[in-house]
């Protein structure tokens, strides 16, 4: 019988500059990229990256100030392009060195970056 997993809620705070190093470590440990999502907290943007290994979750949380740029993780996890383009179009977060950058044409929205508090 397959093992049942008790998923633990964990959110590990990571510096923006350390993100890529942490992600590379997780990749080496065999984690699967599961999702990334942004939340507006006050006027900053909080991004959670989730990784899964054998049904256990690991979440990395970075806090991005307005105008701060984030290194893309698409070099290690190519499927992250969907989330990075989404966050770029809806939240206005700038990702550098993306493997597949839609240049703001991923979601065509009536007003640009509708989620960003400082439009």
């Amino acid at each position, binding site marked *: 019988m397959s093992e049942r997993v008790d998923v633990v809620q964990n959110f590990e705070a990571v510096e923006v500059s350390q993100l890529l190093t942490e992600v590379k470590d997780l990749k080496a440990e065999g984690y699967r990229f599961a999702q990334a999502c942004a939340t507006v907290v006050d006027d900053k943007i909080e991004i959670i990256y989730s990784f899964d290994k054998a049904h256990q979750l690991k979440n990395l949380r970075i806090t991005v100030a307005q105008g701060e740029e984030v290194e893309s993780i698409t070099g290690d996890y190519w499927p992250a392009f969907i989330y990075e383009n989404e966050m770029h179009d809806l939240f206005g977060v700038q990702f550098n060195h993306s493997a597949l950058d839609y240049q703001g044409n991923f*979601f*065509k*929205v*009536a*007003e640009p970056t*509708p989620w960003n508090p400082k439009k």
Partner: protein
Amino acid sequence: MSYIAKSPWVIHYDGSSCNGCDIEVLACLTPMYDVERFGIINTGNPKHADVFLVTGSVNEQNKEVVKQIYEQMPEPKVVVAVGICACSGGVFKQCYNILGGVDTVIPVDVYVPGCAARPEAIIDGVVKGLAVLQEKRDNMVKGIDAPAEEPEAAAEEEKTEEGGEN
């Protein structure tokens, strides 16, 4: 009854619907509800279609697509808005990317409410649409025969005639 009203072909486009109404539109075609018994066939080609079923509300990206499909359809044509989102925007009305119901982009002839619209309601809506289609067709035929300077009068006369028959 003309041939169109006997066997109208429908084209379906999913605006920004949640799929609920779309699968109900498809369910209409399957044995349980079987709209083919009314001669209704689902087609993928706008040029083949007489009735345009739109589900879901219109947003910035798909408004051009909806317009384009509508314009490609030959006259006479009928638009049926299926589900509350297509009618008015529904639960998503306040979303930032929603323009509103389908009637913000193209003229709508029949509104079918419901979240999701039931297959019975959709069939009812299409059948109501057929009456409109017939009327439009009659107007068109008369419009060609009638003198060019009084097209509106001809249309009005037609409407009263229709009312009298009913």
